[in-house]
């Protein structure tokens, strides 16, 4: 077994990817393992005994699904996403930047829910569509309280909240928002130049094949093509619930510009 990449939080191993001969292997230690042949066949997802169905289903439908699709050249980004009548809006950002909460908030306000933390983005001619992948938001205690929603509690303490307005069809991606916090009183939105946007997007690509330069090049080219058609906006706000409606206003403004 050769491990090629891993994700740790506060020293704790959360996830790793590697190779075992021709097999691609992804492991969520203590939770689940995904194995697939390099050609995308022989896919096998196994949850560890005792893992709650909520957790295993989230992994299977979210990151595991995206990893498998990435073998076939599909683009997945660590992002949440919603859609309104103008199209889809995706939200990227580091852990804790409010991706899930933002999507759940917008779905509460009437948008359709497309993804909680893995957005599947598919090229359709010159446009890029977000395909619905998840029908639940995974929210922390504070978000559940503020949004006044309820759901089952999973092993990691997150609340699984069903989204009544889960999207059924893929929607054209209008804007990618990069979320972050700032100390400024008023939220700030700034369209990123494509080279800047690349810096935010490349680390968010879902990648199962880490050791083949040609695959990385393909992903880079795909992002480059997407940036020719999809604006990326850095949205910074105070870490305060009252700033969420302003994001909705910005989305309206940007979707108006795009149509």
């Amino acid at each position, binding site marked *: 077994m050769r491990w090629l990449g891993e994700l740790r939080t506060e020293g704790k191993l959360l996830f790793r990817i590697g190779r075992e001969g021709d097999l691609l292997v992804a492991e969520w230690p203590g939770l689940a393992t995904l194995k697939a042949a390099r050609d995308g066949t022989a896919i096998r997802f196994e949850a560890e005994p005792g893992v709650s169905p909520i957790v295993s289903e989230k992994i299977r439908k979210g990151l595991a699904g995206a990893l498998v699709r990435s073998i076939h050249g599909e683009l997945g980004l660590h992002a949440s996403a919603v859609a309104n009548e103008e199209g889809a809006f995706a939200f990227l950002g580091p852990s804790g930047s409010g991706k899930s909460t933002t999507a759940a908030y917008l779905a509460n306000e009437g948008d359709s829910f497309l993804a909680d933390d893995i957005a599947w983005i598919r090229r359709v001619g010159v446009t890029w569509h977000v395909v619905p992948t998840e029908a639940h938001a995974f929210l922390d205690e504070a978000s559940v309280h503020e949004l006044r929603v309820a759901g089952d509690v999973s092993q990691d303490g997150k609340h699984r909240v069903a989204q009544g307005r889960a999207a059924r069809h893929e929607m054209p991606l209008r804007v990618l928002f990069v979320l972050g916090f700032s100390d400024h009183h008023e939220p700030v939105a700034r369209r990123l*130049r*494509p*080279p*800047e946007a*690349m*810096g935010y997007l*490349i680390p968010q690509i879902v990648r199962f094949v*880490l050791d083949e*330069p*040609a695959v*990385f*090049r393909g992903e*880079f*080219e795909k992002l*480059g093509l997407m*940036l020719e058609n999809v604006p990326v906006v850095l949205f910074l706000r105070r870490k305060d619930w009252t700033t969420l409606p302003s994001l909705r206003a910005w989305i309206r403004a940007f979707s108006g510009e795009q149509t």
Partner: protein
Amino acid sequence: MSGKTWTVPSHVFSRDFEGECVILDLVRGEYFGLNAVGTTVWHALSQGETLEGISERITKEYEVSEEVAREDAERVIAELEKCGLVATST
């Protein structure tokens, strides 16, 4: 650097976005962004220009003195070499 030229290793790939270049090191999985001057240097250097040729391009495109252009070119090239994105060819 006089007379010296550079080559871009096969594992290094670049793409322009509205006049600015993003370079990807496919082996290390790292990416680098260049500003407009850096992009001019990158294109000239990729086409086999010497330091003199690269400086001349900067002088013409940005209307700066030869001295400033040469300093800019040397600074960018040194950074690219340090990051392993170019190699000396002669």
